[in-house]
């Protein structure tokens, strides 16, 4: 005997979410059945509102409520300095340090031909379109992985000929970390990018 139709449908919907398998989907669905109706209404309302009112910023491709995001709308931000990140959540990390006064550009991924991700799949065209507006520096803040390195290198190839300064976030020893415990790759890169005192 199967589940009642509405329940089966609910389980099927949960299963479509990333990281939710059949078992978790069932658990979540049964949980919903036990929730007060008012809570369920609020939950489904939040889903719809979030989806309807949030899109990507037409300038920087960050998650935005409306046409542009808060950062792009903020007049105190320097639009001539652009920090390029792979995902919108990387912006939150940068914003936590409250030091950076420029704006961002979100690529929504990293180059990875093996998985079928080429320049067309990323928001690179949108980034290049911003280069005409008097941009002075582009900071490439992609992760120090093969994919992050390749993406940064590729963008540098496209942007440098436009006479715009291109920099990359430094990587090395974590602050407060002990030499003893650093992994070999981190130590190697810290050694290669050492600086004069």
């Amino acid at each position, binding site marked *: 005997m199967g589940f009642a139709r509405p329940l089966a449908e609910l389980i099927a919907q949960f299963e479509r979410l990333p990281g939710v398998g059949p078992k978790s989907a069932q658990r979540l669905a049964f949980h919903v059945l036990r929730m007060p109706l008012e809570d369920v209404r609020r939950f489904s309302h939040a889903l719809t509102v979030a989806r309807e009112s949030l899109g990507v910023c037409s300038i920087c491709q960050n998650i935005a409520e409306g046409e542009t995001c808060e950062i792009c709308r903020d007049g105190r931000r320097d639009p001539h300095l652009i920090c390029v990140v792979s995902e919108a959540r990387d912006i939150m990390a940068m914003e936590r340090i409250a030091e950076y006064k420029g704006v961002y550009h979100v690529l929504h991924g990293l180059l990875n031909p093996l998985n079928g991700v080429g320049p067309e799949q990323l928001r690179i065209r949108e980034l290049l379109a911003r280069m005409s507006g008097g941009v002075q520096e582009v900071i490439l803040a992609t992760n120090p992985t093969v994919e992050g390195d390749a993406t940064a290198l590729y963008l540098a190839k496209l942007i440098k000929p436009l006479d715009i300064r291109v920099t990359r976030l430094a990587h090395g020893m974590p602050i407060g970390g002990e030499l003893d415990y650093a992994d070999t790759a981190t130590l*190697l890169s810290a050694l290669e990018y050492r600086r004069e005192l």
Partner: protein
Amino acid sequence: MTGYLERLVLRNLRRLTEAEISPAQGLTLIVGRNGQGKTTVLEGIHLLSTGRLLRAGTENDAIQLGQDGARVEGTLTGGTELAVTLRRGSRKMAYLNGLGQRRASDLIGRMPVVAFSAQDLSLVTGEPADRRMYLDLEISQVSPAYLRDLTVYKKNLKERNALLRQEEWVSDDLLATYEEAMAEAGAGLRQARAQWVTELAPLARDAYATLAPGETLHVEYLPHEEWMDAEGAREDYAVNRRRDRERRMSIRGPHRDDMAIEVAGVDGRKYGSQGQQRTAVIAVKMATRALMAARRGEWPLLLLDDVFSDLDAQRRACLAEWASQPGGQVILTGTEPELAGSALISAQALYWVDSGVVTRDEIRG
């Protein structure tokens, strides 16, 4: 200092359901009839130190039939603990002092080994890929920078090949991006390989001369192209880009390198006798051990699997003497203890393997 392998535990690896060994600081002999599990012990050690088994085939094949997984643990003097687990249908995992590592290869260099088994004959008889595997494995054990360059090179090569296979047009800029990374890492590989073989060649020649007086062994690095630095590499990749597009893969670079191994003046692969080929490989491995010791300041663990079977008495005696020299840890397998000759006399630990059960021979203390 990394120290000796003090204790080894194997679980569900081939025939060995549960085995524990405490190797001596010097020579340990592992003896048993064919098919009892001797090589498996060495395979376990090799897996711990390099993330790879000794023989060809998938890691799944090494998991005991009827079991879901296998585990190898090793304790080094000083307390460092290494472990590798194999699991059917999932990634092998490596642990350092109980901490999961990102890749199994992250253990490389913790317990350097030099191994000689039947499989290694491919160093002379096999394809260029077999010789590259030798270079990559041995140099990685003494140079983390080499291991890093190798990982980066291979990944970028795969990405570039994926681009070359695509149906849609790929821009020169995009291909050049991967060439850039390959050039930097590739130059590191080439320079390290050249230096390694330059230092290895005279050691191998001497080792061979000791094993087979009157015959010479010549070892030489054969890079696929002339370039040795990143600048030359970038140019070479760029110039050959069109051909690569036509062939739909990267046809040039360090992933095509080779090494010449000539016995008595001729290519060992084509003309060597079985004994000569075997002797050449043993000489290269002896030289490798000496070179690793020179680079690291201590002997790597030496694993000798059934080395005595194809050698004449004179070579056997020579090898036994070499294996029993003080200073390094050696683990040696054989079907009869007597085959080890003088090595048996200096053995400090003797284990018998029978039907997958490993027992220590207490008589020999």
